[in-house]
């Protein structure tokens, strides 16, 4: 796994976009440690600038509730700690997209956790499909309201098949 770019916010921002993603990898991985400035724990994920043509099923666990649902509003939404959650804590999240340069639809797996003042630990697992044949050249994380807090970090990696020198691909 090779780091493409990593960004830590020195100033809060509503959106973080990675552009000109190299096309010589096989899979994309994003690891993130983020937090909202607003009292809203959701953010939106876009590929090639688009928040459309996503289908999503999630499993969410929090104090007093475990639920699963399919989302049909076209976009891909996930979670982070909101403003009232434990001060200075950030989510642990990861997102995986295999075969990101292929001309097939793109499958996505994502998981994230956050913690709320020792009273509530939250987990969300997402499976999604982006129905688009374009190779992925940009990836955007966008807070629905407010900003990603200062100190939020997103790192983007690529995995190239056969690059470990052990596995031979043909």
């Amino acid at each position, binding site marked *: 796994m090779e780091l493409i770019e990593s960004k830590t916010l020195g100033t809060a*921002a*509503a959106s973080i976009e990675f*552009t000109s993603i190299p096309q010589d990898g096989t899979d994309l991985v994003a690891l993130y440690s983020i937090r909202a400035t607003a009292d809203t724990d*959701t953010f939106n994920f876009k590929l090639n600038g688009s928040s459309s043509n996503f289908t999503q099923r999630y499993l969410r666990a929090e104090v007093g509730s475990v639920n699963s649902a399919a989302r049909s509003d076209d*976009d891909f939404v996930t979670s982070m700690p909101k403003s009232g959650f434990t001060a200075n804590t950030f989510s642990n999240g990861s997102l995986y997209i295999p075969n990101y340069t292929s001309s097939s639809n793109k499958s996505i797996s994502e998981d994230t956790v956050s913690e709320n003042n020792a009273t509530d630990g939250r987990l969300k697992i997402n499976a999604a499909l982006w129905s688009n044949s374009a190779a992925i050249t940009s990836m955007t994380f966008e807070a*629905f309201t407010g900003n990603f807090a200062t100190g939020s970090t997103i790192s983007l990696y690529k995995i190239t098949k056969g690059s470990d020198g052990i596995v031979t691909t043909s």
Partner: protein
Amino acid sequence: MTDTPTKVIVDCATGESTTVPLTAEELAQRETDRLAYEAQEAERKAAEEAKETAKASANAKLKALGLTDSEIAAITA
């Protein structure tokens, strides 16, 4: 006056990072996405509440028939 939300653009080809205000189109899309999400969440919560209400009503009717809590649990678990 409210500051316009910003976007940090990280160019993976050059490693350069720039910060720009969201465009009017991006702001509109952000609002559309937020409203769509909130509408679907409201729908999900309403469905969950309706399910809980129906469950409580069903339990009450079973109790009225004379079933005990453990008997109700045995047939609904």
